[in-house]
């Protein structure tokens, strides 16, 4: 039973696709308007088992309209939640579109803890929603507080966590001391209160082996936070960012393009914005074995040439510490 998990480079935003063993796809977040996943769907017309929106911010859900327009007949289910006032245009527009498609046969379901997005016949492999609860959703003060958390479990343990824009302590509360193979984000490498003791402790307990940060070159939020990258790298976790930010190399990040063409090597369309660093990353989960694409060494070579890549600088600290 094999899963192909692709973490897309969509600039500042999130998007992942999971190819299920039966060849269908689950899409977790769509990225902003102009997301390359739309071009990919347009070209390959995959059968989409479900589209899951962790929340309705435009960097996570902006391309839903484009996807729904492209191939409504090939999408079974959309999971979404109400993360802001129902009159707020960001929610209202998306909800209207989804409701229009629902009349034509699309299943529109609420993203809520306890939902199985996909489950194998034996029940040992599952895509499961761990956050939010209904009360958590209704009482949330901001959209990020009610962001969905989805996990892919296999062989009795959590392998992947999609944490949307949640805080690290919340991910820890929902997933336990999971030690996942891959944690996505959260919040583009800028989780809320990343330097708080509770956040540091939660990260240590969560103890992910790899973190993929889907961050845009020109984001105006200072993502990813150096303190967060430092915590991760020192604790032995390998960090990969989708795009280069001025914190790593100002000159190269302003140049656009990519430090190496990982998109094309993986057969994926590139994003329209930013300067790609690792670009997209692909994993294949086959039983217990997790394999990555073969582009890590090429990426290492390129970021070493940058001279001041944050991840490498902090990784050296880890090496020094262990020495």
């Amino acid at each position, binding site marked *: 039973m094999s899963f*192909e998990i692709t973490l897309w480079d969509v600039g500042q935003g999130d998007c992942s696709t999971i190819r299920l063993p039966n060849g269908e796809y689950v899409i977790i977040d769509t990225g*902003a*308007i*102009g997301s*390359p996943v*739309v*071009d990919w769907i*347009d*070209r*390959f017309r995959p059968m989409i088992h479900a589209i899951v929106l962790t929340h309705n911010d*435009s*960097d996570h859900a*902006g*391309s839903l*309209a*484009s996807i*729904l*327009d*492209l191939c409504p007949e090939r999408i079974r289910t959309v999971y979404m939640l109400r993360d802001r006032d129902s009159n707020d*245009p*960001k929610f209202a*527009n998306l909800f209207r579109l989804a409701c229009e498609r629902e009349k034509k046969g699309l299943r529109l379901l609420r993203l809520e803890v306890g939902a199985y997005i996909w489950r194998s016949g034996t029940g040992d492999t599952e895509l499961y929603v761990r956050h939010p609860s209904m009360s958590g959703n209704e009482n949330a003060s901001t959209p990020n507080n009610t962001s969905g958390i989805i996990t892919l479990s296999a062989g009795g343990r959590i392998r992947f966590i999609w944490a949307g824009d949640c805080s690290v302590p919340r991910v820890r509360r929902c997933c336990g001391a999971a030690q996942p193979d891959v944690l996505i984000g959260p919040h583009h490498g800028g989780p809320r209160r990343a330097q708080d003791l509770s956040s540091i402790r939660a990260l240590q307990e969560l103890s992910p082996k790899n973190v993929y940060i889907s961050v845009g070159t020109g984001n105006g939020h200072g993502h990813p936070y150096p303190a967060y990258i430092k915590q991760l790298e020192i604790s032995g976790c390998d960090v990969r960012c989708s795009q280069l930010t001025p914190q790593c190399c100002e000159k190269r990040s302003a140049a*656009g*393009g*990519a430090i*190496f*063409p990982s*998109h*094309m*090597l*993986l*057969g*994926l*369309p*590139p994003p*329209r*914005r930013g300067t790609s660093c690792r670009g997209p990353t692909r994993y294949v989960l086959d039983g217990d074995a997790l394999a990555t694409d*073969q582009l890590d060494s*090429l990426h290492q070579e390129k970021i070493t040439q940058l001279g001041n890549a944050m991840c490498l600088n902090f990784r050296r600290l880890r090496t020094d510490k262990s020495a």
Partner: protein
Amino acid sequence: MFISPTSDQAREQPSYSDVPGIEAVAIQRMEQSFTNEGIHNLANGAGSIEEINYLDTTNLPMDGSGLVLALKHKLELDINFISGNTTVKRWNVTTRTIDAWDLPRLLARKFLQLQSKAANSSLSAEEMSQYNTILEEVDWNQYAIDCARPHYVEGTVVQKSPLRIRWADDTSQDLPWTMAKEFFLLESGDKFSAHVKLGRDNTVLAVRHVNLIA
């Protein structure tokens, strides 16, 4: 002497085949590339082993699609007068020298083959290395944008003159007057849906199928 298009000119290549007349421009430019002295000289054996020979075009036609793949620089050729073969360095494409006029098509074919294999995750290690080398020499970013079809988006007309649009993600954009005719029937404040061809940094290259959302 034939002057091949500069990289700036290459970037100006048509990116939207639906725009009337733009394909004709592309074909004209490609014809200019094919009938250059460089290729003819190569075909007639006018080169020598010592001098560096280049393929005198920076645009590869993608058969049938009306698109071109722009090269970042001219490609170096290795001409073997003994065997009568010409090889494009780093691309690993060889043809008989008298058929060198067909090289742009062969190169485009090679690129498409590798691209297709990458999309099917069936590249061998050797092919991936070859593909990576080729990607360093082509403007793959522009090509991917050129290939992409328009996306469905929704927005609101903020003002009509000059035309300003607020997209569904709350970003605003001024559109050039050439696109104003698409919004002829709309008023300020109207919500609309449209199919939009997006370029780098989500620049709007073309708009069509503008519809009022009730």
